[in-house]
């Protein structure tokens, strides 16, 4: 096939105890956007790591044909050499370095052995222009939002004369606006002749942008779809991914809402570095028993900050406000106190805040509720194993055993481990910050079911999410947050995406 830029034939990859890929075959045509879909742990990231030399030649079986030639990569550098660049599931930018420095990191513009910063900066500006990003090329990366950082990653890839760009879940951390923007940049690059492969669990995006779709299930290629005007929709992809049609995205749930038990009044918190800037501005809200409360807002609106400042004041400087549990004011000065009061917080960034990547599944699951399996600081090993097994099953975590390191799990399964860790504390109020980020449709459904179950047990759930359909589908009541203030409150029954969007962006509506 002359139109093919890449063929992967019969790829098989084993890890100790798991066959991650089993005879996977995939063809990518020149100049297309090729999507890879599959459940968590299906082997998508592994396939791309094989392609980009992260798993070098010799550690897998099968052939890779790039541009008509058999290629055998020994590492990332050698795949980049032929123009294959991968942007990993987790961003790899260095927060303290400037945009320019990051773009050329490992690929510096050198002139007689010395880095030519003037030239580098010139080129950086041009690259940033290509991805439609207007930021200071000398400013540090940490000042950029996630969406902007993702674009810098693409600019960095472009700086390497990329011919095949691989994006592993590029939009999972982005809100809809940023995702839209990124997708349009991809389309634009496509018109300039760039081929890209994209992994995503956001099926609407895939249906919208992909020219072809390869579906992987349990390490096997299930099918390859060519998209011709409207023949592939989300349901079609889901059918391929899970092997059956999914009747609905959200489990049926009849809320049994009790009385108000958790309330926050006038919560005011200052930014940890920038004095005077309020990340929470006199925020007041409440949660009733059995209620699922959503928090909608744009990236950076202050939802995470609000949640973390409540959760043992782990963010910012507390300026004022009260927390009432069952009508009585309580002090929650640290995480231990929060856990003791039955509050749990599932952070949005699992690698940075949720996991110790050196730990195994078992130790991670019990880590937050360690008191439940220990007496006077001595851990009961049998209780620990039993607990870990129970939660691994309950959360349907795909791992060879509870003793494998969490770093070997697929992204989605890592997320489930973090959820399990916090469910194990048996919270009366569970704060979930983007709990379904990077999780496949089937697993999302499971997690929604779990959230419903928590609510049915009379617990309160706070769910922060950037996906409005998810908030509308799961929550009973939704608050909107804009620039640190709560700008609105609606029952999910009467809310729509548009009405939420207005409150999330328009202060005047408050």
């Amino acid at each position: 096939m002359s139109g093919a830029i890449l063929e992967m034939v019969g790829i098989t990859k084993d890890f100790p105890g798991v066959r991650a890929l089993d005879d996977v075959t995939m063809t990518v045509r020149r100049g297309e956007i090729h999507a890879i879909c599959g459940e968590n742990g299906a082997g998508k990231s592994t396939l791309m790591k094989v392609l980009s030399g992260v798993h070098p030649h010799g550690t897998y079986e099968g052939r890779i044909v790039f541009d008509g030639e058999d290629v055998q990569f020994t590492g990332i550098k050698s795949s980049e050499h032929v123009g294959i660049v991968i942007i990993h599931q987790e961003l790899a930018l260095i927060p303290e370095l400037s945009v320019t420095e990051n773009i050329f990191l490992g690929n510096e513009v050198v002139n007689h052995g010395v880095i030519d910063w003037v030239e580098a900066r010139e080129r950086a500006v041009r690259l940033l222009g290509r991805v439609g990003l207007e930021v200071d090329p000398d400013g540090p990366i940490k000042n950029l939002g996630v969406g902007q950082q993702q674009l810098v990653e693409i600019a960095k890839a472009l700086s390497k004369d990329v011919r095949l760009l691989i994006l592993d879940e590029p939009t999972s951390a982005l809100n809809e606006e940023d995702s839209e923007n990124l997708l349009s940049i991809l389309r634009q690059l496509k018109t300039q002749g760039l081929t890209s492969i994209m992994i995503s669990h956001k099926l609407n995006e895939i249906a919208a942008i992909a020219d072809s779709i390869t579906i992987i299930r349990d390490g096997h290629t299930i099918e390859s779809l060519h998209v011709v005007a409207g023949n592939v929709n989300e349901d079609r992809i889901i059918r391929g991914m899970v092997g059956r049609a999914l009747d609905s995205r959200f489990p049926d749930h009849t809320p049994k809402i009790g009385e108000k038990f958790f309330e926050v009044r006038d919560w005011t918190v200052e930014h940890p570095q920038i004095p005077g800037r309020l990340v929470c501005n006199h925020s007041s809200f409440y949660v009733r028993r059995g209620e699922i409360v959503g928090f909608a807002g744009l990236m950076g609106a202050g939802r995470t900050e609000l949640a973390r400042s409540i959760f043992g004041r782990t963010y910012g400087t507390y300026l004022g406000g009260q927390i009432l549990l069952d009508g009585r004011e309580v002090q929650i000065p640290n995480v231990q106190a929060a856990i003791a009061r039955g509050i749990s917080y599932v952070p949005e960034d699992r690698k940075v805040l949720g996991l110790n990547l050196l730990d195994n599944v078992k130790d991670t699951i019990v880590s937050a509720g360690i008191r439940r399996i220990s007496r006077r600081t001595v851990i009961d090993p049998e209780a620990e194993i039993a607990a870990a097994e129970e939660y691994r099953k309950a959360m349907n975590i795909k791992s060879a055993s509870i003793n494998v390191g969490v770093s070997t799990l697929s992204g989605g399964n890592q997320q489930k481990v973090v959820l399990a860790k916090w469910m194990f504390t048996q919270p009366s109020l569970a704060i979930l910050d983007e709990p379904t980020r990077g999780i496949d449709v089937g697993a999302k459904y499971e997690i929604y079911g779990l959230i419903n179950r928590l609510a049915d047990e009379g617990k309160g759930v706070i769910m922060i999410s950037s996906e409005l359909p998810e908030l509308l589908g799961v929550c009973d009541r939704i608050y909107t947050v804009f620039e640190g203030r709560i700008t609105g409150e609606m029952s999910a029954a009467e809310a729509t995406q548009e009405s939420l969007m207005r409150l999330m962006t328009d202060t005047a509506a408050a």
Partner: protein
Amino acid sequence: MTATKVIEAEPGKAGAPAGGASGSSVGAGLKQVLGGNLRQYGMLGALILVALFFEFASGGKMLTPSNAQNILNGNSYVLILAIGMLFVIITGQIDLSVGSVAAVVGICTALSINFWNFPWWLGILFGLFVGVVIGMWQGSWLAFVGVPGFITTLAGMMLFRGLYQYVGKASANPAPPEIRFIGGGYLPEWGPNTGLNNSTLVLGIAAMAVLIFLDFRRRARVIKAGGTPPALWVAIVRLAVTAVALGYITWLFGSGRPGTSFPVTGLILVVLALVYNFIATRTTIGRGVYAVGGNKAAAALTGVSVKKIYFLAMTNMAFLAAVAGVMYFGRATSTGPSDGVGWELDAIAAVFIGGAAVSGGIGTVTGSVIGGLVMAVLNNGLYLMGVGSDMTQIIKGLVLLIAVAFDLYSKSQGKPSIIATLARGFTPKVVEAELQAGVVPNRDLGNPLWGVLSFLLFPVGIVLWLTWRTDRPNSAKQARSGVIAALVVGALAGMIAIFYALAQTTGLFS
């Protein structure tokens, strides 16, 4: 919903010893006996090889009772420092001040006894108290002010060295006999003439009894939790090897010139190693230490108080430095100007040879002790061969470099650290592994007699070596064997009692 005991106890089968090595190859069998990855035993193997090498190279001077006693007496204090250093290093910090702290404690103990006329025990308590105060001082700088441990303890290294010189005024202060006993004494002689030191013999037998007991209990637990323990013969061979090794060690330390035994310093070391191994693997504090080293931010959000862990690690380190200081004071019989110089480096080297990671989060107590022993034996062996201290330094440096490089290599191959899991031999971790893996389908607990039988191999270790060492007078040999046999019979009766008590409580023989 509770987390305990989802795994129902299966009715145990009382049974005849089953098993037998039918059908499995020698290699696979060896693997089972050692409990998994052979590489993990690399460091222990290295220790044995180094010892044997010098035994032959020096014409039999290495493995003599007096030399073995010397090695322990001359290195126990460094190994104790290594245990404390391990915890500091796991948290991702380092302590450069331990030598100076030990010296200060030594001089404080000495002066309080010689000038304030403290009784010896009060002098020791005073020394330990000084150590703890110093630890709290350093811990506070690290935990509450945020000065990195490297800086805090670099300052401490100078500060306490200066303090030592100021307080000590270069005087030599003799140690009272009790402290000399702690730092270099031997266990008492008593009872019939067995040709061995009876205290050592009893210790050896007790240790063997405990090991058999633990192995048996672990097996019982696996079965009770519904898992599959490894084949019976595996356990028997494992215990048999242990029995021979312990028998040999008992002989090695017990057959020295009259009045010598397994050294007191060794006993202190073993007790501390057991206690700290328990803390590391079985307590919430231990988990906290690993969590902080693995991912500080995630640990904090999990309810681990990072400050508390830092503070405890530093305080504990100085406490152990104080123990080491007192022991060395006793061994050297008087204070001296070079007390504690360079000890921190030996301790740090031991920990890293033992498989700890520089970036924190990884390391074991057993590993560190074995790492320290490798260095000690190397040092001693080179000395026996008349190698000068210049060459000794060079060789030690190279060994450190190569050991750590090898460890990194095996980690990068996806294998666990050579000895990271070595310590798990008799800890609950193995229960989990065996629960999970179910090495060989075998649900028989077996007859408790097998444990007792393997106990018989204990004297085999002694007798073997007695016959090998022909330089021992024959008549004494016979006397020994007779008394040993008598002792063993007594021990057997005790063992049987233990097993049946245990069987009753676990209900496996009902």
